[in-house]
Every structure is written in structure tokens, then in C-alpha cells.
């Protein structure tokens, strides 16, 4: 979020106070729409994207996980998540918000956040809090217990997502230090990517990986899901301007450009390396571009978007294929390969292409590109280190108490039947 919204939650304490920021129905209409678009990215965009890539016997379990995460995070957000991410944390404010907005205590129908109702702002942010843990599903697909997944989601958003969101957007240290993250390169993608990598390592490989063939059961669903993600992402990126203005217009445009560039790059890279361009490749490339442009969307111009797209197309192609094969971890749906690596590339290149000379919105007063790159770098590193450590601890503790992984027979039978007593397909 480009605008400083540190003080805005406090407006909730002063109902009826008229300030320079008044309700703008254009902004509000767009933000209501954006919110719906971003929720659509999770259900069913991401759900289908992922479900299509797993084996048929686990397809329903992926849909179930995403749906359940949506519902669970919504309640947590309502009770304390919004407050921890976006309210004033007093002496702890550099690290996390406070309790003033538990159960939205200080938010009324008339509360404003900038030019939009605070409820709309909070709801928009909720959709981000939902999709981030949903992304992690891609790393532990086909082998995690549903109960463990629910516990993990609840604890992870509490200990990782809310603090990191606060660091960058809620008035915490990274935002204050000038880290640029328009729509969630660190908060969403690097967070999910690193958590995914850790989860893949802690849970271990799927039975039979990598020698048993586990091809996607329905690339049709995956392509449909990827398409929904592309379109929905306009809400994610352009909506992060929190207004309907020139910046949101440019954000939408550069999102399109970077995505297209990345999709083509992955396609050509695959064509060159493996001899044929694939549908899974072009869809993955598009997602890689979407991820990388996320932190940059409100700060870079079209030229920068092309470079970011190409860089992410190449980087994520390498990450999801070569790196994964070499290192041997079973990041089943390339949560780290695409979101982790794409997020890192995007976050760093944001520091470069924000520069006015490169078509961006301009570096902050007195900040050099090197200086901005430094801030971007430690924002990335802090997110990675904190996320990795806390995720690891959460998983290890959960594993000790309830166990993370399904047993071998359940894994073989498939989670749909074993955990949910249902079939995704009765053909």
C-alpha cells in the first residue's frame, strides 16, 4: 500500500469527524470490486489452478483446503487479525499492531480509511490474508492432514502473516524504513514461498516422488484457474492503490505487461530447453509474472514491467525445474519456485525500476537507487529469515502434538476418499 495508512485506523475513534479525506464513491466502488476479484483469485482461481495439477484422487482435497482456509482466516481476521496487522501497537508498533480493533471494536459503518470505508479496506486486506496461506497448500499438497492444515493456517497467519503485514503496510518498521511493496511481494509471495519450502522439507516428499509419475490430472482446470488468477490479479494489484486513479490504472497496465512478458519468456525457455512449448508452462510463466509485478505494480512503468516479467519468467522457470530437481525437495506445486523466487525477483527489481529515469514513479526524496535496493534487500531477507524460522517451529510443534502427515495407506488411497469420504469425480 503506497499511501501511509499508519494513522488512519485511529479515525475509527472519532466517529463523524470530517477530515480532508472524504468518502469517494468512485474509489469505494472500485475497492468493493477489487475485493471481490481478489477473493475470486482464491476461490476458485487458485483452487482450480492447484487442483488441476494434483492427481485426481486428491483434487477435491485441494478445493476443500482453499475453501476452509477462506472461512477460517475470515473469522480470525474479524476477531484479532485486522487489529494485529493494522492497528497501532503502541510500544510494539514497529513489530505488530495492537488490540484496539479486536472484533472490529472501533470500526463502524461510517469509519473511513482514506477515501473508502474502513470496512472495505479491512475486507480487501482480508482477501490478501486468505490467499497467502492458501498459496502454501501448493507445497504440502497430497499429503497433509486436514486437521494439521487448519491448525497450521490459524497459527501461521497469527505469528507470521499479521506481523509481516504490519511491518510493511500497518505502520511497522519496514514500511517506515521506506521498503516498497505495493501489493504484497514480501507480505504475500515471499512469505508463502518460504513457508512452502519449509513445509515441503519438514513434511517430506510424497510417496514415490520423484520416480513415480504424478502428472497433473486436469490441465484444463489448471489453465482455467490460471486465467482467473490473471484477471483477478487486477484487483490484487490495481486495487492496492486503494483508489480509482492514475496509479491504479498504471498498476493494472504494468500487471498485464509483466504477466504477458513472463508467460512468453517461460514458453520460449521451455521450447528451447525441452523442444515443445507447454500449456502448463505458459500458465506458470503468467503466474510468475503476476507474482513479480506484485510489489512493483504502483511504482514501475511499462518498460520496467517488461524487464520484471522476463526476469521472473526465467528465474521461476529455473526455480520450478532445475533448482527443484537439483535440490530434490518436493515442493509439489512450486510454491517456492514460483511465489518465493518470483517474489524475491520482483521485490528487488522494484528498487531498480521505481527510478524515474527508468520510467517509474520516482525514488523517495533523498533516496538513491542503491539506498532503495538496500532497503528492499533487507526487507526480503527479514521476511525470509523470520518466516522460515517461525514456520519451522510451528510445523515441528504441530508434528509433535498431532502429526502433520497422513499415513501411507491414506496417501495411497487419496485424500479425497481417506480424509473427506468423497470423490472429486464419480465417473
Amino acid at each position, binding site marked *: 500500500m503506497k499511501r501511509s495508512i499508519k494513522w488512519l485506523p485511529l479515525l475509527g475513534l472519532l466517529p463523524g469527524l470530517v477530515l480532508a479525506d472524504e468518502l469517494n464513491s468512485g474509489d469505494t466502488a472500485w475497492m468493493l470490486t477489487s475485493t471481490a476479484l481478489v477473493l475470486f483469485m482464491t476461490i476458485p482461481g487458485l483452487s482450480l489452478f492447484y487442483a488441476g495439477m494434483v492427481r485426481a484422487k486428491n483434487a477435491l482435497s485441494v478445493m476443500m483446503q482453499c475453501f476452509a482456509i477462506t472461512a477460517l482466516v475470515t473469522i480470525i481476521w474479524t476477531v484479532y487479525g485486522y487489529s494485529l496487522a493494522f492497528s497501532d501497537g503502541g510500544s510494539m508498533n514497529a513489530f505488530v499492531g495492537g488490540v484496539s480493533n479486536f472484533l472490529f471494536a472501533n470500526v463502524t459503518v461510517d469509519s473511513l480509511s482514506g477515501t473508502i470505508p474502513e470496512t472495505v479496506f479491512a475486507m480487501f486486506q482480508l482477501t490478501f490474508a486468505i490467499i497467502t496461506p492458501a498459496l502454501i497448500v501448493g507445497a504440502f499438497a497430497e499429503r497433509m492432514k486436514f486437521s494439521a492444515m487448519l491448525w497450521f493456517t490459524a497459527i501461521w497467519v497469527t505469528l507470521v502473516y499479521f506481523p509481516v503485514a504490519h511491518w510493511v503496510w500497518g505502520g511497522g518498521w519496514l514500511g517506515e524504513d521506506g521498503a516498497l511493496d505495493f501489493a504484497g511481494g514480501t507480505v504475500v509471495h515471499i512469505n508463502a514461498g518460504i513457508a512452502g519450502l519449509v513445509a515441503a522439507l519438514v513434511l517430506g516428499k510424497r510417496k514415490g516422488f*520423484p520416480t513415480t*509419475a504424478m502428472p*497433473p490430472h486436469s490441465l484444463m482446470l489448471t489453465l482455467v484457474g490460471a486465467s482467473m488468477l490473471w484477471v483477478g490479479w487486477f484487483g490484487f494489484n490495481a486495487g492496492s492503490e486503494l483508489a480509482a486513479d492514475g496509479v491504479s490504472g498504471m498498476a493494472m497496465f504494468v500487471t498485464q505487461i509483466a504477466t504477458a512478458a513472463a508467460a512468453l519468456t517461460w514458453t520460449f525457455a521451455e521450447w528451447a530447453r525441452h523442444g515443445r512449448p*507447454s500449456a502448463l508452462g505458459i500458465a*506458470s510463466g503468467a503466474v510468475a509474472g503476476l507474482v513479480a509485478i506484485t510489489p512493483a505494480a504502483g511504482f514501475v512503468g511499462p518498460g520496467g514491467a517488461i524487464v520484471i516479467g522476463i526476469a521472473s519468467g526465467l528465474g521461476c522457470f529455473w526455480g*520450478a*525445474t532445475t533448482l*527443484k530437481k537439483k535440490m530434490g525437495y518436493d515442493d509439489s506445486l512450486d510454491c517456492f519456485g514460483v511465489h518465493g523466487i518470483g517474489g524475491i525477483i520482483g521485490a528487488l527489481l522494484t528498487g531498480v525500476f521505481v527510478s524515474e529515469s527508468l520510467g517509474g514513479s520516482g525514488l523517495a526524496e533523498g533516496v538513491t537507487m542503491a539506498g532503495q535496493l538496500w532497503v528492499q534487500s533487507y526487507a526480503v531477507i527479514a521476511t525470509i529469515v523470520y518466516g522460515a524460522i517461525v514456520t519451522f517451529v510451528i510445523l515441528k510443534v504441530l508434528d509433535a502434538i498431532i502429526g502433520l502427515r497422513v499415513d501411507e495407506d491414506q496417501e495411497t488411497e487419496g485424500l479425497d476418499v481417506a480424509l473427506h469420504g468423497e470423490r472429486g469425480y464419480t465417473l
Partner: protein
Amino acid sequence: MKLVSAVIKPFKLDDVREALSEIGVRGITVTEVKGFGRQKGHTELYRGAEYVVDFLPKIKLEVAIDTDLLDQVIETLCKAAGTGKIGDGKIFVTPLENVVRIRTGETGVDAI
């Protein structure tokens, strides 16, 4: 009576069905099967993970015939299902002990 089973390339099914019908064989059972003989499989690639797919989709058809018709059926099948390329398939001939038409109870050649 004979039970003639043939494993053929899937796209040849319509040609075979028509050709058999022309020589008087009107009943046929078809199943979708997988298999290979000398025809090589292919590789599929998903995000850099390569899989060798040995099994190829084929169609298996079965017809029950009067022994008199056997040579004609074999000739017709070969002509209709053949492409000249590896993977055309095989025909298996087994003796058929009895046939019963469920609706009427007819048996033997009358039931074919």
C-alpha cells in the same frame, strides 16, 4: 463358434464397425484398453519433470461368430484396422463353447 478379440488403434473403430457390418457381423463389444507391443510410448513433460508413458490407448473389440465366417472376419479386420504402421494391433481367436440370448433363451449359432 469362435470368439474373435482384436486390439486395434482407437481411431480405426468406426472403419472396423462398418466393415464388419457389411459382412454380416452386427454385434460387437468394445472396451477401452491400454497396451503396447512393438510400438514405443512417448514422453510427457510437466514443469521439467519428464514421464515416460509406455502404455498406449487402444480399443479392444470382441465378436462372437459362426466358425464358417472366421477367415472372412479376419481378412475384414486386417483390412479395416490396418494402417501399415507399427501399433496396428493383434487379433486373438478363441473357441467359443456356447452363446445364449438372454431375452429369448436361444442358444448356439441362433443366439449370435
